[in-house]
């Protein structure tokens, strides 16, 4: 328990004098008054303690700790009950709030509305990343996943975000890369109109050959829009496995005497990892000079889009990264869409909704930045 008033004052006096006021014994006395008996901490779980107590329960001397155990158990159950109710209430409130925002700001499949919702934001992410979950057990899991990806792509393009990376743990999206491209292209046509005003879409996945953009039905094949979107698909194998692969390559080089272990620096690994998920910037890159200031001080090559996400949206009730590549999210803002009921354990899919996307971007713009110092 925290110190009482007099002890606090004494302690702070000691701190101010850089440890000269109290002697070792005085300090020990001070602390010992507050430390619990070691026997209380000995067994890690309370159930073990209850068992121990039961064994010694015969003597009435042990009655008090036993009663205490029982009391604690009762309180635990009461708390869990009350807390369960509290969580449900919170879920309802949050669901109502989200519905309110959804009604007030709906995209109507029109980029102009989306841009109006995002007007006046001080900054927008250049690399937006989302974590989605594929529900393999339901019948239309893949369809809904593809549709979600398409919607997110359309919203990001309308917002002027050049790179969207989608992380999905099992990597099912990578297997259906051409389907992804088709469906996203259809959605873009729906939002922006038929080519030539459709934004240019490119789909990438690390270690997979990138697909060429779908041929537009125009004869000359040019587009009159400077909007484009690069879509990067990530999965669990781009996380730890990539680092393990890099270690293996470095070990091989070291065994062949081409590399000394002390040459391995943070920069070396950084270069390699960013190269593995790098996406070349498209040629008509007018969006990147739209006046939004560079957020983190990382300098990157202008021929490649930034490999570190600026904002990561987790479409789940709690933030669990679930295998997302660890190296790149060093300075990424992480936003959780919130718990609105439905999937308590996080195992089923959270719906991807426009209001979640909006709230994430609003939150990002309002966030302060303080880089180390």
């Amino acid at each position, binding site marked *: *328990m*925290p110190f009482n*008033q007099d002890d606090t004052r004494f302690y702070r006096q000691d701190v101010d004098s*850089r*440890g000269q006021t109290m002697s*070792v014994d005085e*300090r020990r006395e001070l*602390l010992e008054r507050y*430390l619990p008996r*070691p026997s209380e901490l000995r067994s890690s*779980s*309370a159930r073990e*303690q209850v068992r121990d107590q039961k064994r010694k329960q015969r003597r009435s001397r042990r009655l008090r700790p036993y009663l*205490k155990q029982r*009391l*604690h*158990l009762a*309180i*635990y*159950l009461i708390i*869990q009950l009350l*807390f369960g109710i509290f*969580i449900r209430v919170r879920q309802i409130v949050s669901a109502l709030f989200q519905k309110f925002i959804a009604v007030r700001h709906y995209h109507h499949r029109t980029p102009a509305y989306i841009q109006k919702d995002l007007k006046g934001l001080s900054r927008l992410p250049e690399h937006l990343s989302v974590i989605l979950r594929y529900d393999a057990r339901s019948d239309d899991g893949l369809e809904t996943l593809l549709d979600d990806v398409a919607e997110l792509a359309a919203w990001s393009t309308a917002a002027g975000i050049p790179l969207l990376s989608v992380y999905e743990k099992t990597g099912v999206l990578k297997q259906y890369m051409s389907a992804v491209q088709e469906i996203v292209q259809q959605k873009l046509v729906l939002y922006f109109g038929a080519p030539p005003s459709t934004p240019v879409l490119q789909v990438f996945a690390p270690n997979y050959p990138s697909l060429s953009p779908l041929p537009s039905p125009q004869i000359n094949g040019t587009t009159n829009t400077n909007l484009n979107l690069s879509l990067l698909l990530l999965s669990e194998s781009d996380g730890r496995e990539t*680092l*393990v692969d*890099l*270690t*293996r*390559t*470095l*070990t*091989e080089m*070291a*065994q062949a005497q081409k*590399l000394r*272990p002390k040459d*391995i620096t943070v920069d070396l*690994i*950084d270069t390699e990892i960013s190269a593995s998920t790098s996406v070349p910037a498209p040629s008509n890159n007018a969006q990147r000079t739209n006046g939004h200031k560079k957020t983190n001080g990382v300098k990157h090559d202008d021929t490649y889009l930034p490999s570190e996400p600026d904002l990561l949206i987790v479409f789940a009730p709690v*933030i*669990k*990264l*679930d*295998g*997302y590549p*660890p*190296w790149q*999210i*060093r*300075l*990424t*803002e992480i*936003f959780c869409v919130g718990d609105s009921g439905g999937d*308590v*354990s*996080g*195992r089923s899919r959270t719906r991807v909704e426009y209001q979640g996307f909006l709230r994430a971007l609003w939150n990002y713009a309002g*966030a302060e930045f303080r880089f*180390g*110092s």
Partner: protein
Amino acid sequence: MGSKQISTFRKWILSSPPAEWALNQLRELLIGAIKHGKVPRHVAFVMDGNRRYARTHRIETVEGHNLGFEALARILEVCYKSGVHTVTIYAFSIENFKRSKHEVDALMDMAKIKLTQLSQHGELLDRYGASIRILGQRSLMKPDVLEAMDRACSMTEHNDKTVLNVCFPYTSRDEITTAVRRTVQEYARPVPQPQPGHERRTPFTEERIKNTLRSQHKNEQDSNEHMKDIEPTAFHSPSSSSTSLASEASAQSDTPPDQQHDLVQEAEAEAEADASSVSSSSTTLPPEVLSSSSSPPTSYTGSPTPKPLSSLAKPPLSQPQYKNFEDISSATINSHLFTASDPPLDLLIRTSGVERLSDFMLWQCHEHTRIVFLNVLWPEFDLWQFLPVLWEWQWRARKEEQMGRLLMGQEVKVD
């Protein structure tokens, strides 16, 4: 000194003995209640918000850090009483060296004093089985702080009931890089070769085993005409070289010895000519692999010749043997991290409303860790903000367990 008190009257009420006693009893009760559920084994804290607190309450930044230390003591007490095994705190980042010299010096000073004081209470720590570990890039610290760190750590090394990891100075990328470097160092160290006289002593001899095998195969061959002859040479034990090379041996040993010799020379030439590419792994494997057709281990002294004893006159190329790099997995890298001996991270809490990881525990928390961002500043962080986080963690853990049991029940029914 400025005001450290929220409101004088409220503070006066709260610090009167009956109120204090009541609050303490309540705290004990709540902490005791927590222990009846599932408790996270490893919790990490990012202690953010000291300076902002100092700014808003108009006190010195250093005072803010001192208050932060008090908050840390409170939270540690709650954690350990609840049964958490390991607590990791982010005390100082390598990026924080960019702060003003005055602040950095004050922080180092504070660390040194606290660690020295800690080392004076050795038996107190031993009583509770508490140990403290300092994780981070030691080369950036001044020697006097390093000395205090080492003393505190070595004094409590043998305790393992509860662990406090202080990340000072620490950056997760640096930790991962160090782990990779250590792995590479381990795998680039040549495996010690067995001396010619010191063979592995075992009651089983190769000759006898080979004879048994040969007679076995003869029997099989006699009984089954169509079965292909398996060369006894394929079953050479690799003696004391690494076992993974044996798989290469069995693949290669079908060729007769003189062809093997040519292969060896070819491989040598390839290995030397191959200056830039690291693509094919076979060229970097030492040529002794192919020499396993001869049984005595003398051929493993480093000379690349496959011919037995007679060709020891050839100058040894002294290509050392290494552990196979294909064995490197994420568990290997995990074991070289600073937190290798700790249980997996269950809960990561960051205060002061900032929603970034800021280079903390990236490798450890990117799988199943629950990340919580709280809007309270670190010096104000207390049991009342921490308990709801624990409750929620327990509640979700229970729900997941129930869900898991339900799913398993369903799957069993389907099957």
